[in-house]
């Protein structure tokens, strides 16, 4: 589904290279976790995959369902089925949740050759999916993320994911700033969306989230490279030992 080969990327403005050769293959239905210390390039990877401006890919390739992902505009990527749950969801004063989601869902549906949802169906779907993450249905009149608490913003990301039904979802530090209850709600929402043909790339600093969203694979990103990959036991190991032993191992290798 997603194949990243030797991906190098730098920050356009400063020229600083952040990703220094990433290789990763994600197959349908798999959940991959990427862990790593601050500054290792985790969020840059998410940004490059989603197509955020400000980064330049200097080498390597990314294919998504056999398409060259890097050639696509951010909105085309989303319509192809890529979803990024933002680490810092953006507030959009004056844009109502219902208008925002209607535009988003209909853009994606049109791309898939599906008809627009009727108002009734749309509202019913909204209500149903909001319940996945225990969001108050009255949110449809509110402006996107405006006045939302930190936890509500993160739940709102998962809610949007549920509405858009992506093929691949990237969760960029979705656990950051969440208390344990909110974390559970978010994880339950994600687990509900797991399916045979939907994949996840879960980016996190702490393994705590992975107690709830159990990954098939764990990768450790250090200095812009994946230095170690393994099963979920690797995450537990990191929790106990920290990142230093991996850094040493990477230097030694």
């Amino acid at each position: 589904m997603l194949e990243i080969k030797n991906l190098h990327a730098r920050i356009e403005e400063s020229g600083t290279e952040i990703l220094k050769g990433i290789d990763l293959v994600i197959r349908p239905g798999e959940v991959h976790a990427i862990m790593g210390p601050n500054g290792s390039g985790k969020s840059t990877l998410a940004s490059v995959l989603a197509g955020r401006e400000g980064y330049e890919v200097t080498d390597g390739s990314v294919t998504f369902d056999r398409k060259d992902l890097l050639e696509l505009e951010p909105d085309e990527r989303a319509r192809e089925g890529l979803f990024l749950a933002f680490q810092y969801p953006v507030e959009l004063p004056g844009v109502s949740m219902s208008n925002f989601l209607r535009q988003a869902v209909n853009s994606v549906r049109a791309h898939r050759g599906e008809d627009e949802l009727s108002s009734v169906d749309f509202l019913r779907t909204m209500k149903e999916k909001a319940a996945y993450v225990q969001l108050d249905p009255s949110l449809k009149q509110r402006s996107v993320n405006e006045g939302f608490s930190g936890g509500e913003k993160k739940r709102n990301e998962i809610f949007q994911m549920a509405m858009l039904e992506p093929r691949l979802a990237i969760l960029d530090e979705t656990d950051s700033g969440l208390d344990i209850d909110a974390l559970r709600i978010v994880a339950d929402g994600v687990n509900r969306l797991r399916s045979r043909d939907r994949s996840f790339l879960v980016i996190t600093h702490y393994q705590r989230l992975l107690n709830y969203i159990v990954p098939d694979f764990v990768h450790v990103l250090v200095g812009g490279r994946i230095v170690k990959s393994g099963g979920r036991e690797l995450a537990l190991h990191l929790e106990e030992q920290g990142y230093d032993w991996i850094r040493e191992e990477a230097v030694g290798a």
Partner: protein
Amino acid sequence: MTNTDSLKPAERGFVEFWRAADGHVLNGRDPGLAAARRSAIERFAEVGLPPEKSEAWKYTNIRRLVEAWAGTDPVAEGPDPGPVDGLFLVPGDAWRVVMVNGRFDEARSALAGLPSGVTVASIAEGASSRPEVFARSFGATRPEGADGFVALNTAFAQSGLFVHVPRGTQLGRPIEILFLSGSERRGFVQPRVLFVADEGSSARIVENWRSFGEGAVFTNAVSEFLVARDAAVDHVRIVDEHASSVHVHYLQARQLGSSTFSTVSFVFGGGTVRSDAYLLPDAEHCETHLNGFYFARGSAQVDNHTLVDHARPNCESNELYKGILDGQATGVFNGKVLVRQDAQKTNAYQSNKSVVLSETARMFSKPELEIYADDVKCSHGATTGRLDDDAFFYLRARGIPPAKARLLLLQAFSGDVFETVRDEALRERLLARLEALLYA
């Protein structure tokens, strides 16, 4: 009468046209109106057009624009506009008035069922049929006088429109005034509206300014509002004219005690659109709302000049102007809130926000507060910026194409000004127009 030899060519041209037309075309049957015109042309000869580089006209070289219309007959009737039915903006029940090049077109207007005592007529007719109303109202909205354009309008206004809502009368439907300006080659038109809402009355007025024909038209318009004690007037003004037009408009409103005056303007189209709003809450406990939205692209220029003159205690004013500039357009906002010494307990708020979409569009914003009273609550502010990159990316990351994402953000930005239009059906029409302009 002033010797015209000392005048500059632009001013001299108008004075000479006025002399040629004096007595027959302009005055109707009313001696009071004739006297007002005579003193207006004298005042115009004295103050003239705004000088180049005057502070009030810093960014709009209006003299050069007037000179481009030199020799254009300011009393010519102009061509027939043809059918007008599709041009009205207020859906459903409304009284409709058509003004063609500043002249009240009774045949095209639809005024059946107006409550008794309400007058909607030409100014000349109103002056003779309601002389006491005319005498206390015409030219009474700005005691300190405006610049030469208002005097020029008074001297030349063609028939104009006189609306009088008597004491205690509530107009259940809006009055939409469709102002059509057009010419075959060049036109210079000076529409005039005098609106008088007597004690305890209420009314909704929509001014809808449109162009017709191939020629370029210079409009110098004045709309005067007198809002008496306990009256409430809601005014919406839409300017959607051809890119070749120049539109200079003076809104002057004087409010008496405990009255409410709400006005919002929408500039969607025009070459140069200069709007000068002067609001005078002239008694205690007045409520004043002054809002505006402007969109300009190409080489258009939108210049908003406002003055809220708080002369009395215990009044409140709210002012919000927002605009979007694209292409090589220029926007100007110069808004002043003046709180005079007697105006204690004034609450006055003013804000101007603009979004600039291109590298070449420009916005000049100058909010001003001038306060001479010590017990007041006032604030003002202005921001000009680009579309928020993070917000834009967020929308695109949800699959929304860039043109649509931009539209959503611009609609969200402009929304609160459109919200001030209370008539929901009209608001929907205006939002649709905005969408058509932004999402082409």
